[in-house]
């Protein structure tokens, strides 16, 4: 009637519930055997709606039960009897004992009810003390320890129930709270026992008893320790395995979302070489950034605007690659934050890249270096080259987007093209206070050769 044990046994043995209950009551009256049996059954037999025990340790109770009576007995669906029996109160009082497995609200709710029991016990203890103070005829020595012990036990059991539900996950905020409460409950029980012992005997005797009890507890701990350690180690191993498993699942999911999808797309568009190149290149980039970490550029990174030089150059190069399906090799040395002058350089760089992939094709090489006082960028291709002087005046690509833009922000741009060898666009954007790089006299860039058309546009 209390925890649905009778109903469970009745269902298991196919007997009427009433008969089982009567048998329990009779056995309980005749020496208390029924009561003991009842409590053991309640503690060891898994309840009906308890989740099926997972391979590894689910908790002490269920693993012992699995050895004994690995049955699926109906759970605590008995009628609630508020008779003050400690600890176990049915999670949800169902009107009558019903052997049909009703999806119970779960064990979690028992915690709250358990808390109520704990509170009630402690309150009762307090009232007893109060009553004895105002001359109520209560035997303080007998009742106070009882209430304290019962309250502590209730606290421990409800917590164990709770923890069991979360697979003994004693880490994390809720796990720590549970451990704290279990400890508190044990302390209460211990305190109650102490009260009982000290209250009924003299102090010297109590001391000896306590020493004996401590020795015994120590012995028990010693015996149980290996088992406990192994239990925890198994638990740790299992958790590691699960972590690895989920990592592998992550990788599999990622590969599926990215690589396999791309491979499928490539198969479908195998007659379009440009498309295939573009898909493969995009996928390669994505996989690289995923594998080698660093910058987390994923699909949602598209709207995010980077402000560092390195990221921006990569971003722009990827855009151009995607648009034209030509691979661009990017080498960036150093890094720095970008101001609006830097953005102007990036814009000009992009235009230079677009020109290179459009007129020359792969390979296009981009080199960007952040110097202490300037940013320099080079775009080189190995295309047919062109006569810089012969570019019609109405062609805005080079003249406006690259040279004009760089000049407006105080930078320089130069285009150098050799017929049959390729073209190189050089961009230099000095810092706002710095002077132009041409004054540094590092002997670079003035190597005018035969057949070379070079034009330094702005100085």
């Amino acid at each position, binding site marked *: 009637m209390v925890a649905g044990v009778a109903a469970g046994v009745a269902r298991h043995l196919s007997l009427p519930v009433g008969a089982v209950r009567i048998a329990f009551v009779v056995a309980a009256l005749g020496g208390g055997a029924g009561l003991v049996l009842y409590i053991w059954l309640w503690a060891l037999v898994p309840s009906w709606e308890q989740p099926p025990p997972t391979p590894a340790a689910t908790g002490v109770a269920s693993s012992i039960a699995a050895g004994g009576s690995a049955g699926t007995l109906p759970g605590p669906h008995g009628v609630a009897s508020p008779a003050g029996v400690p600890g176990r109160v049915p999670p949800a009082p169902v009107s009558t004992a019903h052997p049909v497995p009703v999806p119970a609200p779960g064990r979690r709710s028992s915690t709250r009810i358990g808390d109520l029991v704990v509170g009630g016990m402690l309150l009762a203890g307090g009232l007893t003390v109060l009553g004895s103070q105002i001359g109520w005829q209560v035997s303080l020595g007998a009742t106070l320890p009882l209430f304290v012990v019962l309250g502590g036990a209730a606290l421990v059991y409800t917590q164990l129930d709770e923890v069991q539900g979360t697979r003994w996950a004693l880490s994390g905020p809720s796990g720590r709270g549970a451990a704290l409460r279990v400890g508190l409950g044990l302390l209460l029980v211990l305190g109650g026992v102490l009260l009982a012992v000290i209250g009924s005997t003299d102090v010297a005797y109590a001391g000896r008893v306590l020493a004996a009890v401590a020795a015994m507890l120590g012995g028990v701990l010693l015996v149980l320790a290996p088992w406990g350690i192994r239990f925890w180690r198994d638990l740790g191993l299992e958790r590691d395995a699960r972590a690895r498993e989920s990592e592998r699942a992550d990788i599999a999911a990622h590969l599926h979302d990215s690589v396999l999808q791309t491979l499928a797309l490539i198969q479908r568009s195998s007659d379009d070489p440009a498309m295939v190149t573009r898909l493969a290149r995009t996928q390669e980039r994505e996989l690289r950034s995923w594998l*080698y970490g660093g910058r987390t550029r994923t699909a949602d990174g598209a709207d995010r605007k980077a402000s560092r030089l390195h990221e921006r150059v990569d971003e722009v190069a990827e855009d151009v690659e995607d648009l034209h399906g030509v*691979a661009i090799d990017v*080498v*960036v040395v150093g890094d720095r934050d970008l101001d609006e002058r830097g953005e102007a350089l990036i814009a000009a760089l992009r235009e230079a890249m677009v020109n290179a992939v459009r007129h020359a094709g792969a390979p296009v090489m981009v*080199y960007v*270096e952040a110097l*202490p006082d300037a940013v320099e960028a080079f775009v*080189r291709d190995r295309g047919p080259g062109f006569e810089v002087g012969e570019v019609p005046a109405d062609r805005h690509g080079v003249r406006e987007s690259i040279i004009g833009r760089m000049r407006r922000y105080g930078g320089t741009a130069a285009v150098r093209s050799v017929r049959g060898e390729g073209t190189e666009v050089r961009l230099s954007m000095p810092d706002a206070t710095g002077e132009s790089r041409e004054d540094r006299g*590092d002997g670079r860039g003035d*190597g005018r050769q035969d057949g070379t058309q070079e034009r330094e546009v702005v100085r």
Partner: protein
Amino acid sequence: MSIRLVLVDDHAMVRSGVRTELGAAADIEVVGEAADVPSAIERVHALRPDVVLLDVHLPGGTVRPGGKEVLQRCAELISADPEQSPVRFLALSVSDAAEDVIAVIRSGARGYVTKTISGPDLAAAVRRVAEGDAVFSPRLAGFVLDAFGSGAGEVASVDDELDRLSAREREVMRLIARGYAYKEVARELFISIKTVETHVSAVLRKLQLSNRNELTRWAADRRLL
């Protein structure tokens, strides 16, 4: 005399692809292949090739990356031996991780090229390595510039000659990073190709021998080239 080459890569597809591409070069002969660390060490010792094309990531070893272990266990073949010509290693990889690059170069590889390199370029790189020169791809040159600090201000604070690049070496590295071939670098700087090769070899030596600890830390911090 043709260049005898051993191909080490765990992917058969890559090996056959490289074989095909190098097939166009009459002076390069692929004499052996290996797919993992132990067999690579065994093959290299048995065949004593002129050049080993070495993938950086190889299975079967105890050191990561696997290419580093092959280099370490073949160290006595790399060092100059008056009796026999040394075996030279050229790393070939898709890996972009700076730690991998620095690991194989510092273990004795004479160069590092990525698998996107074209067939003729790869053949040229093999020839260059066979002659004892270093092969720097634009990416590796950028890596060197970054690792040794491209800023002029940083150079003054370092006294050890191994720990910094000379102005000329820096110039050569910058041009290579910009995609210039060695002969274009030579023309650009009005120096001979031989001088360019000397500079590049000097940079490689610094990269291998410098105990500048920023180098390693830099590579670890900066996982992407």
